[in-house]
């Protein structure tokens, strides 16, 4: 029983990380109907800035994160301005492929800056654990859940109560109408990329929930968050959160129980579980659990 509860908790912490990355996808998608494949690159570069400042320059970890957040914001803004803005009005698929190009460039840049090795992010959680009711809870996992919860609430408040948040909601609802009402759609695009970049950078701290390290291979983690977005429905923030919990827990349960009960699926099967869940959901609901069904006119 303890094993199961621990798996649930670990799954929830995984879900928290998925939720962070997935929110980035959804925010970009809602504001400009673009699917960003650049998230792995953003995650890598954001995480490595934390490494740079906290480990190499020996700055306090939280201060390093703050600096990395600023850097990530700038990266997001620059990418949006240079690469995405000229693509407004181009076919969706062209823009999606374009973000793959951005991802390639970002990853190479990260690789060039930080090398091919495993780096510690220098976070204060280490391998510390607390035992609650016989269940071992990793400190980093608790931190992941708390950070994700705080960020999600902050974002919801941001969308609900700030001016630019209102502008973002208006743009998501109808870009042209928002434009005619005087909303600066360009600024909305910029802000959404900045938010997505920051979320990816924060998520990078929790990619390896056990060790807190980061290596270039971890970029693939952000791609595992793609099914989360699809399962929830591309344009639903709530959907992304629900899907993150489903996928996180499903993945964790698989990785805990598959060697015991169905070993034939092979090692690392848990990592393809998000995709399997996605296949099943899409077969039943082609627009995800909470996605808006496209209305087609001929």
């Amino acid at each position, binding site marked *: 029983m303890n094993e199961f509860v621990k798996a649930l908790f670990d799954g929830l912490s995984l879900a928290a990380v998925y939720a962070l990355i997935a929110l980035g996808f959804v925010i970009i998608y809602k504001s400009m109907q673009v699917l960003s494949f650049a998230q792995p690159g953003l995650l890598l570069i954001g995480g490595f800035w934390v490494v740079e400042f906290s480990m190499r320059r020996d700055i306090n970890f939280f201060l390093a994160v703050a600096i990395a957040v600023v850097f990530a914001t700038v990266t997001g803004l620059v990418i949006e301005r240079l690469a995405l803005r000229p693509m407004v009005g181009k076919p969706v698929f062209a823009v999606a492929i374009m973000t793959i190009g951005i991802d390639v460039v970002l990853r190479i840049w990260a690789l060039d800056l930080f090398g091919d090795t495993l780096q510690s992010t220098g976070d204060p959680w280490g391998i510390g654990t607390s035992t609650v009711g016989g269940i071992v809870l990793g400190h980093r996992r608790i931190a992941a859940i708390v950070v994700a919860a705080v960020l999600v609430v902050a974002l919801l408040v941001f969308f609900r109560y700030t001016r630019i948040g209102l502008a973002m909601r208006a743009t998501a609802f109808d870009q042209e109408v928002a434009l005619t009402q005087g909303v600066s759609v360009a600024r909305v695009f910029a802000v959404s990329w900045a938010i997505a970049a920051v979320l990816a950078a924060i998520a990078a701290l929790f990619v390896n929930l056990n060790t807190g390290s980061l290596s270039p291979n971890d970029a693939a983690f952000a791609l595992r968050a793609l099914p989360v977005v699809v399962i929830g429905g591309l344009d639903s923030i709530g959907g992304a959160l629900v899907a993150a919990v489903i996928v996180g827990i499903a993945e964790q349960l698989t990785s805990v129980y598959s060697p015991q009960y169905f070993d034939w699926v*092979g090692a690392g099967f848990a990592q393809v579980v998000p995709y399997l869940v996605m296949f099943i959901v899409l077969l039943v609901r082609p627009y995800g659990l909470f996605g808006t069904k496209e209305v087609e006119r001929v």
Partner: protein
Amino acid sequence: MRGRPNLVAEYRSDAAIFRSNVQRFWFVLLLVVVFYLALQGRPDSPLPQLGPLHLGRDWMILAVTAVFASIGAIGLNIVTGYAGQVSLGHAFFLGLGAFTAAVLGGVEEVRMVPDLATGEMVEKTLLVGYGLDMIVWLPAAGLLAALCGLIVAPIATRVRGLYLAFVTLGLVFLGTHVFKTAKGYTGGTNGRPTAEVRLWSFRFDQDGEVFGFFMTKEQKLFFLGLVLLLVLGLAAKNLARSKVGRAMAAVRDRDIAAEIMGIPLTRYKTLAFVISSFYAGIAGALLWSVITRVQPGEFNLLLSVEFIAMILIGGVATVSGSVMGACFIVFLPKVVEWLAGVPLFDLVISTGVGEGVFDIFQFERILFGLLIVLFLIFEPLGLYGIWIRIRNYWKAYPFSY
């Protein structure tokens, strides 16, 4: 209709493979030049050389890769270009082809292991391999991939646009996992040796005489690829200009409108997936047979993107564009290598340790990303579009219109 290639008076000529005799002439000339270059593409060639166009061994290897990759690119163009169904799953089908070929045409690997129960040494098959002929494994690779395309199609035809991109992307990740797990067939993470390229007793993967003319293995493989490319390219071209092709184009342009006009959507989407997978299977089988070793990790998203780049850079929904794009992408590393020696560029690209900003591989990746982006923004029609523009410019020369 000399000088007015866009004027079409009959449906017949509209659907013709070559619109005019001029096109036919240049096509034949291109074939002849390629043929000649390939024939003298070895160090001690007896044929006179065409100036600097002498192809060394390294160029021939790339040329072989390019023709085989062209077949795969044509396949992707059928589903993505002609039928408009974005597929990021091409790597999966290439992998299926490669591993099918490796299993059917590869050698069996057995090792003597002690039996735990009796203590005697018994034979244990580490890798399944049947050592069959190319006449078996090549079609089989295509057919198995096509079959998998058929199996995936029900999911793929249900979803559209970006959701489809994800489904096919998921396919790549699932595929990699399956390839890594089925150790008896694929050799696990480290991969396995691939099939021998041998047709009846004729070995394509060894140097030898052909009709009394000595050829290196690269030359033989190149001609094999060229023949296959011509056959499969022509087949794709014919598909595109037939009823099926027009139906696919209608589905691409507006699937709901197509459905209203009585085109069965599911059937044509499925068909596009199956045919495309077939091409991918063939291409995968050949590409990896040439490099003699295949590893599951190679069939990742980046490979799919490389093929997407081929058709985007070459030209969407054109057979010739697929070939151009494939050649472009395959020869890109060579071009970057050459660029590294050029002044100005050598400041950016390093050939040794500690000089330049990026090494050759990194620069190639960045260039690759940039090229996709630039082509998407400035020339959505790809190299094919550039070619059309150059042609039109010279047609009206010296006037600009």
